[in-house]
């Protein structure tokens, strides 16, 4: 346990100071409350659920990591498995050589990352359980770049940054708060079970946010945007799943 905590501390130090400042100052209530609190009893329960989970996770525990022997024989593909998009199909046929990920919004140096740029960042490999909100779960090995290090490579986030929004090729979008952004297991995965991330699982890049359910782990990431408010984005709830009516916080 102490080893794990030390690891997190190191990671936290790697994260740009503004990001931490954002977490500690403006991020305080964000940590315990979804960006949009729904009305009625459901909204009250949302706040209770999120604040209780976050309070129990105050020391930023890692999600369980498993041994190789626990890796599931296959990793299911679910939801969108092959976006019907001409440019995307072009990237697939070119093995994503000309693909680029714009990282913008409240970062000090907005820029684009090629897949090679992302792979050149420090690599994190983790064998974790994907927990789908539908009920299934499967253990797999993910390889990727910690999101915090990618943001640092874009100059770090500005002090007012509160959420990171991910836009996918098929129009899906999701967002996470700084509490998850600074976590070492929050990675942009490009490898699954020793291979390049397959198209069915979100190639070339998908989010792994291990302490939240499957629907937060957005696939086919096309761009990343750091924001101080989710209000102006699409329907303003912070994600397509929460636009539909799922709880924005996917911890349960």
């Amino acid at each position, binding site marked *: 346990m102490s080893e794990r905590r030390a690891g997190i501390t190191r990671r936290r130090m790697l994260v740009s100071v503004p990001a931490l400042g954002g977490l500690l100052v403006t991020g305080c209530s964000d940590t315990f409350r979804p960006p949009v609190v729904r009305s009625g009893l459901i909204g009250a*329960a949302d706040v209770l659920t999120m604040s209780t989970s*976050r309070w129990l996770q105050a020391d930023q*525990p890692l*999600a369980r990591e498993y041994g190789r022997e626990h890796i599931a024989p296959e990793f299911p593909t679910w939801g969108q498995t092959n976006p019907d998009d001409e440019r995307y199909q072009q990237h697939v046929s070119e093995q994503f050589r000309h693909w680029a990920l714009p990282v913008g919004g409240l970062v000090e140096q907005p820029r684009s990352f090629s897949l090679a740029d992302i792979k050149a960042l420090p690599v994190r490999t983790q064998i974790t359980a994907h927990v789908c909100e*539908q009920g*299934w779960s499967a253990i797999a090995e993910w390889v990727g770049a910690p999101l915090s290090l990618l943001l640092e490579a874009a100059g770090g986030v500005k002090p007012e940054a509160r959420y990171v929004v991910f836009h996918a090729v098929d129009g899906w979008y999701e967002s996470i708060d700084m509490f998850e952004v600074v976590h070492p297991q929050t990675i942009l995965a490009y490898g699954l079970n020793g291979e390049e991330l397959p198209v069915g699982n979100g190639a070339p890049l998908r989010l792994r946010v291990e302490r*939240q*359910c499957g629907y937060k782990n957005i696939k086919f990431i096309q761009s990343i945007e750091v924001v101080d408010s989710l209000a102006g984005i699409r329907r303003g709830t912070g994600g397509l799943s929460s636009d539909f009516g*799922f*709880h924005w916080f996917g911890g349960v």
Partner: protein
Amino acid sequence: MVESSATASTTAEPAPPRTRRWVALHGYNVRICHWINVIAGGYLLLSGIHIFLDFPELYWGHTGYQGYPAIFRLSDWGLSWDEAGELGNRMWGRNYHFTFAWVFLINGVIYAVWSAWTGHFRARLWPAREDLRASALSGELREHLRWSSPARTAATRYGTLQKLSYSFMVFVFVPLMLLTGLAQAPAFAAAWPWLLDLFGGRQTARTLHTIGTVVFVLFVVVHVLEVLLSGAVNRIRAMVTGRFRLPEEAQ
């Protein structure tokens, strides 16, 4: 305070004064918590069924998905995956399940603290040593097999089987449902990794949680049946107003 008057009336058995036809049976707390439980339990059951129908298979261990060896498939029982999916709405189910889990939990904590504080658990719910003797238990079992009896219709204290089943639900069932539920939540499993070790994986927790749902339905069926067989109107009225009308024989 209400509780103490109820206990007083039960200790006055078997011959309460002729003039007293009504006794105070259930305190405010028991009544309020009971009916909140009916609402919360109802929503938990309904929303749980919705969640299950959206993925109607059960597995054992950490891993489970469509195509992985299952220990239960609803499709083997005549309802195909697609038909079940049509019936179940997991979004509605998840929203209401977690909402009423909080209602149930807060209600339960209030009930438990109150019951421990006032001695309700010890006085009314926890079986006494003499209740647990084999002769007492077999006597009560025989009586229950007779379906309905005047003694049960007049009873102002819980029978041993009733005490055992209520104690099981309060002290074993509810904590296990809570823990198997939390073990399925990635945020709680990260905060409390022992949850995964305790049950041996998320899918095992999900399976146990589903078995618990069946136990809950059985409990409700037997509970309602018992009420119907022991003077339904009088029993339900007592759980609403707190006052129980002693049948003629008992006066």
